[in-house]
């Protein structure tokens, strides 16, 4: 027990101190994850609504792709992007390997299917009478989307929370495509990996606590936002 106590004390010291390294890592983590979540939600939520309500060719295939994407291992996404962005790869000319931009791309690929899948479930799960009424009203596509998103707002808010949860907690993709370069592409999860490997448990736990706090704050904020969204 003494060991755990020492680790916790260390962690708390690190948090109280909150040096420039941790500040920088926290900043980059928030920047990458929030940006990826926003892009993922902006693409994924409309995609989810379309999957739930739309009748178009290829809907079944798209649905399957989304379901696969929801469960794809982040490490695999990181590897695929590394190959694509590698110097000799198809998009090598963009020089994106080991950059925060590449990390955002990776996380967008992880966030979008989650946002789409959870939204599709929430919209598809509306009462049949609601969907029939929606059909009967013959609204424009935008009008329909607005009514549906307000109606399924708690499910849509859950999709945002789930998308953010996936990217903030994810380590495999950002580790591979970002390279965990100190001060450049290091984020909280990759910091934990590095500190653990070097037996710097106090610093690792401190990063873990910060991660948990971020999740808590984002969840509370989105929960409140979901409640406030009204049909307008």
């Amino acid at each position: 027990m003494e060991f755990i106590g020492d680790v916790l004390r260390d962690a708390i010291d690190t948090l109280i101190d909150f040096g420039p390294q941790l500040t920088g890592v926290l900043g980059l983590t928030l920047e990458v994850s929030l940006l990826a979540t926003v892009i993922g939600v902006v693409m994924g939520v409309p995609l989810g609504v379309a999957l739930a309500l739309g009748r178009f060719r290829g809907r079944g295939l798209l649905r399957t792709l989304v379901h696969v994407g929801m469960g794809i291992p982040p490490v695999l996404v990181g590897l695929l992007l590394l190959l694509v962005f590698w110097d000799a790869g198809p998009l090598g000319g963009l020089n994106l390997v080991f950059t925060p931009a590449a990390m955002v791309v990776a996380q967008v690929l992880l966030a979008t299917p989650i946002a789409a899948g959870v939204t599709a479930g929430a919209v598809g799960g509306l009462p049949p009478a609601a969907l029939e009424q929606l059909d009967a009203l013959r609204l424009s596509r935008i009008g329909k989307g607005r009514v549906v998103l307000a109606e399924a707002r708690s499910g849509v808010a859950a999709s945002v929370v789930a998308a953010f949860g996936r990217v903030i907690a994810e380590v495999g993709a950002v580790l591979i495509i970002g390279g965990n370069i100190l001060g450049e592409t290091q984020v909280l999860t990759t910091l934990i990996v590095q500190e653990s490997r070097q037996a710097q448990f106090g610093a690792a736990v401190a990063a873990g606590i910060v991660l948990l706090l971020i999740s808590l704050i984002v969840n509370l904020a989105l929960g409140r936002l979901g409640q406030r969204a009204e049909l307008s």
Partner: protein
Amino acid sequence: MTVVDVRISAGAMSVEIQGLDLESELVTVFYGPNGAGKTTLLRWLAGVGGRRPVMDCAYQPQNPYLFRGSAGRNLGLGLDDEEAGRAGSLARSLGLTNSLAEDSSALSGGERHRLALARTLAKRATWVLLDEPLAGIDRVDRDKVLALLAQELKGRSAIVVTHDLDEAVALGDRVAVIDSGRLLQQGPLAEVLRRPATVEVAKILGLGNVVEGVGHEFGGFTTVTAGTVEVIGSGSVDGPARAIIPADSVVIGHVDQPESSARNRWVGRVTDIRRSSTVLEVTVDVGFPLVSMVTPGAADYLELEVGTEVTASVKATAVVVVPA
């Protein structure tokens, strides 16, 4: 006029109808028992479920659903400014003035129906398609809403689904009688009521008993002779005739009961007793199977059971005789 041929398979329900006449600027009532396929047909015409609608229409489903937000917002959904203005005044006529500011979830079932009705009627569309528009509206408001609906639909192209004869008579110019996914008869409402094509149609329309025979007219009344049985009813028909005897006009009595003013009085045995909602349908064999509506209390009092000998009587003025 639009003539529609339709073949729909939707789950357990299949509808197959050829030559359904939908006349412009008239109200056609789809009439039939629950589960007849009326709603399936209407939804198909309205293009619900991603199909292309058969006509340019404003369609209101049977269970109006209000989305989150105020009732007023729901009233304006899918309407342009002009339509929304009309919806507002219709809503006022329907007594919804105070509810419009409320949250939609606070509205009663009847208020939801009235709101949906106002919105659908306000929409600028060639056809108005309404599925059981008065279903959720309570008795107190029903007559008022029915009158307003009749007035609003007058001269418009409309289809109203109902299984209520009062509604059909109040709203309909034409009727299409539908059962088990088939079109049994269609035409001007008065004509179909006067001349049900088959006994099935007469029964669906709630007319009860139809006796076919030869009519002999006498002073505004007609005696219809069918085999050994005579039925006297109002109407003037010489020749092939049908007598329609409403089941709720037939009085069942003890065989030793004295004669009454009823011109039709037959003796026969009870062949069948079945319960339909609150009353019993008692069938008496009087030379033809005559169905009568009897309250459970009266049946107890008369000790009715299958085989009991009874008299069945009905006033001639309650019987309608039509040419066959």
